[in-house]
């Protein structure tokens, strides 16, 4: 595997970029995302890492995708293409892998429906 930055590292930069794109102050973003006022400064400064729950709130408040905030895509409006990569593939048994794939397809459909 190549040495990529951890998702939380990319997140710091993307959060700031998205916030500036939407011309929001840290406190304004916090309010929109229903987070404590100081939290945005912590996230952008890297002293705190978000949870998925927080990530989603921030993505909603900024009207960008979680994939953008995670550094997976470079366009704020785009989500990653629906081809999940499998980490620890060796640990997943054949049926687990199959089920994960089917389930992801279902989530992908749900994701599409949401955008309509």
């Amino acid at each position: 595997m190549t040495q990529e930055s951890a998702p939380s590292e990319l997140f710091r930069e993307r959060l700031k970029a998205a916030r500036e794109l939407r011309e929001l102050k840290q406190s304004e973003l916090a309010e929109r995302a229903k987070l404590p006022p100081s939290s945005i400064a912590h996230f952008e400064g890297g002293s705190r890492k978000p949870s998925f729950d927080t990530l989603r709130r921030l993505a909603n408040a900024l009207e960008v995708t979680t994939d953008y905030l995670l550094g997976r895509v470079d366009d704020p409006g785009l989500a990653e293409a629906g081809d999940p990569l499998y980490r620890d593939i060796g640990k997943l048994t054949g049926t687990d892998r199959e089920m994960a794939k089917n389930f992801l397809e279902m989530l992908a459909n749900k994701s599409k429906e949401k955008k309509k």
Partner: protein
Amino acid sequence: MTKSANLAFRLKMAKQKAEAFLRDEGITSLPVDPFAIARSRDIEVEPKPGTAGGVSGMLLRHGDVFGILYATHIKSEGFQRFSVAHELGHYFLEGHIDHVLPTDGIHTSHAGFVSADPYELEADQFAAGLLMPAGLFKRALGRHEAGLKAVEAMAELCQTSLTATAIRYAELTEDAVAVVISTGQIVDFCFFSDTLKSLPQLSWLRKGTAVPAHTATAQLNGDAQRVAQGDRVEEDIDIRDWLGGTRSARASEQVFGLGGYGKTLTILTCPSVQAETYQDEDEDDDESMTERWTPRFRG
């Protein structure tokens, strides 16, 4: 901070994070429903077919949509609820985006205190705190007689497995108890309650050590069929039979076969230890106070 102290701190915080979450959400009664919590965050939850073994659960993401798949090959509803709560831990705990997302949309888990990975341990602790929050658990616990009965009652109330409940019980009870899970003649793990730890020079039953010979547990574990059919035995013992130490204390050993997986739950309850503490408190005796407050160094 040492590495193990750091981990202990992280685990404690994970549990408290779950408890704080319940407070924020206004969830103030047991049982806590992890499925409803997932729904409240628009997370799809689906069971894996009952025959499929493999991982206990997975957190999956596609774009902005999240889902949890959980295993049902273990029939216990408690285990399934714990598995879902564990995945919620990955969803709600800070920093888990780094653990579960290096390259994929899938995170798989083995819930239930079987992994040594700190992120998995954190998710286990989150699940324990979510399904058995300290405040509610302690309040309900006060109504029950110490030992297996209390664990069974709490497992029913929280809808958690006996094993997970017993571990939480040892953590939160004010009685002097030890909880031991064993397979055959080998100890899987052991937890002491704080009150029990006040007994001098107990020996810790480490993972992989032998179940003390001639105990009711050793006998029950010698008969796989009895373990499988969920037999139970209760015996009066001296706590030293199990844990050594320098002070003799009357105790009860309750053993319960956990069914087809070959594991046994043992609860050692030592009512006299607490009784003595209360007695001490009644006495206004400087000498006994000095004795009690002199730190003992374990050899």
